[in-house]
């Protein structure tokens, strides 16, 4: 595509409205693209100017909210994070994310993702109930401890990894790369003590052991996460705990690190209030 020139791009979009009982079908729209225009810009143009009944999900427009995941030219992308000129084509086929139920047009039901995510208890679990109920201080986390799981905290729950996963395509009960990566994120956290509770959730016939390590999730993730790595590390952690290999470190304490801290900057004498 000539980047300096506006071009006519054909958006071939899958339409489906279960309320009208129609079968999924394609509808084509012509959009004039300009340099830097994203797929989402094109969809917004169609909705505002050509067909207001087109349904798609969007919010932040900057790859943070994870709302606009869709299948563009047979590969899952975030529409806001994908420019039209990346495809070097004047025809774009846009479909809803596979492996998730369709609500309407390009809108998929993300509830299965959220339910599975919830099932792995995505929060810090501790055995010291007293501290959890009435916290007295923060749990310490070293920079090295943070490194172990930092990348997995960037998950935006867009569902793209699930739509790319071949196991999710063949096994509708599969826990999925998103939840498994988040499971590892919490199990690798030195402040957490809930790994056995989470392991019981994912140690099923449709859990972590069904990952084929195709790596499609890592390749597709728009945030650059590596869920396949998390799943492999999770498998290693589960085998280590189950057969008693390796040493389980004690959970981080609430005692703040014993280091001298600089005194806080004194409150300035001159303030807006004081200047009056």
């Amino acid at each position: 595509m000539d980047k300096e020139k506006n071009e006519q791009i054909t958006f071939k979009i899958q339409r489906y409205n279960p309320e009208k009982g129609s079968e999924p079908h394609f509808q084509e729209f012509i959009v004039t693209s300009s340099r830097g225009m994203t797929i989402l810009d094109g969809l917004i143009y169609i909705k505002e100017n050509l067909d207001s009944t087109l349904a798609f999900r969007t919010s932040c427009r900057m790859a943070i909210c994870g709302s606009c995941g869709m299948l563009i030219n047979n590969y899952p992308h975030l529409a806001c994070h994908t420019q039209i000129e990346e495809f070097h084509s004047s025809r774009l086929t846009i479909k809803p994310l596979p492996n998730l139920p369709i609500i309407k047009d390009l809108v998929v039901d993300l509830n299965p993702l959220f339910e599975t995510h919830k099932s792995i208890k995505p929060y810090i679990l501790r055995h010291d109930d007293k501290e959890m109920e009435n916290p007295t201080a923060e749990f310490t986390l070293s920079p090295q401890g943070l490194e172990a799981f930092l990348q997995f905290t960037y998950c935006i729950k867009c569902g793209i990894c699930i739509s790319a996963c071949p196991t999710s395509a063949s096994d509708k009960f599969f826990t999925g790369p998103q939840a498994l990566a988040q499971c590892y994120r919490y199990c690798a956290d030195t402040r957490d003590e809930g790994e056995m509770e989470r392991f019981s959730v994912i140690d099923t016939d449709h859990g972590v052991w069904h990952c084929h390590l195709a790596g499609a999730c890592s390749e597709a993730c728009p945030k650059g996460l590596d869920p396949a790595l998390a799943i492999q590390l999770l498998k290693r952690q589960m085998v280590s705990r189950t057969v008693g290999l390796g040493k389980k470190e004690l959970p981080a304490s609430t005692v703040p690190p014993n280091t001298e801290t600089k005194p806080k900057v004194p409150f300035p004498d001159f303030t807006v209030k004081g200047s009056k």
Partner: protein
Amino acid sequence: MRNTYLWFIQLITGALIAVLAGIHTVWMHLDAILGFFGVDLKDVTGWHSMIERSREVMWAGIYIALLAVVLYHALNGLRNIILELTPSARTERIVTWSIIVFGIMAFIWSVYVPISLLST
């Protein structure tokens, strides 16, 4: 942690297959290379050699162990594939028990020959 144990055994049996099938392959099919190093196995693939070998406890043990690990590794893999393609609780029970019964029957049937040869 049942599935973790199943997976761990899958890993162990995979490693054992590499060792045991490796011994079998080197002995049965690489006799020319072994001959280069001065090991003369004579007619290693002949009927009489095979019967003689099966009467030795070490070889019978290797073959029975290889059979056991291959059966576990293959049938557990097959079970995982079937369960992934037909996910339901009812299928799971049927598939699991069918595979266990088939595995035990195949094992008993297959070890009959080396055990009967050992006893003669």
